[in-house]
């Protein structure tokens, strides 16, 4: 049994210390995903909601796939709920948004990437973030987003084309 599974099993039994260890292991990935997905707006609150939901649903984790993937799935559904609850349409914010990305190797490239991401629809953005940013396979990303594999592949292809067109650094 790997470390995540063992910690998740203990968390399901109500062990808050084990759950805290899981938070420590995965908060970076969840917050990075949500920060880029929400374009920085309310990402930390949403991340907190994700972990609280994961705590409440700890007993539901069946050990199929990775724990991080399970968290990402919760993050995606929480994002969609928050997005719909806020009554926001899928209108795209073309304006540049300023993210604090101190660890990015090239700040200019990071800003370009953020601008390019902002121009994508939420599904394309999420698919690109999962496949390129978090190293998920297409099958994992499809599972996280609750989409058929073929649909996910089409979305990734659209995201790739849009990003490639917008990012001068890629050309």
């Amino acid at each position, binding site marked *: 049994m790997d470390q995540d599974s063992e910690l998740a099993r203990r968390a399901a039994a*109500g062990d*808050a210390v084990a*759950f*805290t260890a899981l*938070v*420590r*292991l995965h*908060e*970076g990935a969840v*917050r*990075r995903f949500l920060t880029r997905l929400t374009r920085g707006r309310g990402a*930390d609150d949403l*991340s*907190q909601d994700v*972990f*609280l939901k994961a*705590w*409440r649903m700890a007993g539901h984790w069946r050990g199929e796939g990775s724990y991080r993937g399970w968290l990402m799935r919760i993050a995606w559904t929480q994002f969609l709920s928050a997005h719909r609850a806020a009554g926001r349409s899928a209108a795209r914010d073309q304006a540049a948004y300023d993210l604090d*990305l101190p*660890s*990015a*190797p090239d700040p200019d*490239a990071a800003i370009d*990437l953020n601008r390019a991401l902002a121009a994508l629809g939420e599904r394309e953005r999420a698919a*690109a*973030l999962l496949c*390129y*940013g978090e*190293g998920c396979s297409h099958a994992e990303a499809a599972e996280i987003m609750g989409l058929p594999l073929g649909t996910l592949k089409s979305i990734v292809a659209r995201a*790739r084309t849009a*990003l*490639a067109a917008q*990012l001068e*650094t*890629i*050309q």
Partner: protein
Amino acid sequence: MIDDNLIDERLTALFAEPEAAPDEAFVGRIQRAVLAEQRMAAARKALWLRFGIEAAGSVAVAIAFVLLGRLGPFTLELGKGPSGPGLAAGLVLLLWLAVELRPVAATKT
């Protein structure tokens, strides 16, 4: 036309961020929220338990009154103890008193 694989490689490199150390402030925030959640769950459980006890007590008292109502005027014959519905109702009332007074006694100590 650039090869898709090449674009994928470049995008992956562009998205890459070094794994940072855990943000302890955020971890602490979650820890506190989980602790609060645990306390709330415990309080909710205690509340439901209390509600169950109160409900059971109320039902018992109601049954006791129904049984007493069926007795008619209370008479105590010499040499005979109370029996039948009267005894049952009395026992139920005693049980209710015990249940009701127990928490009061516990909080006073």
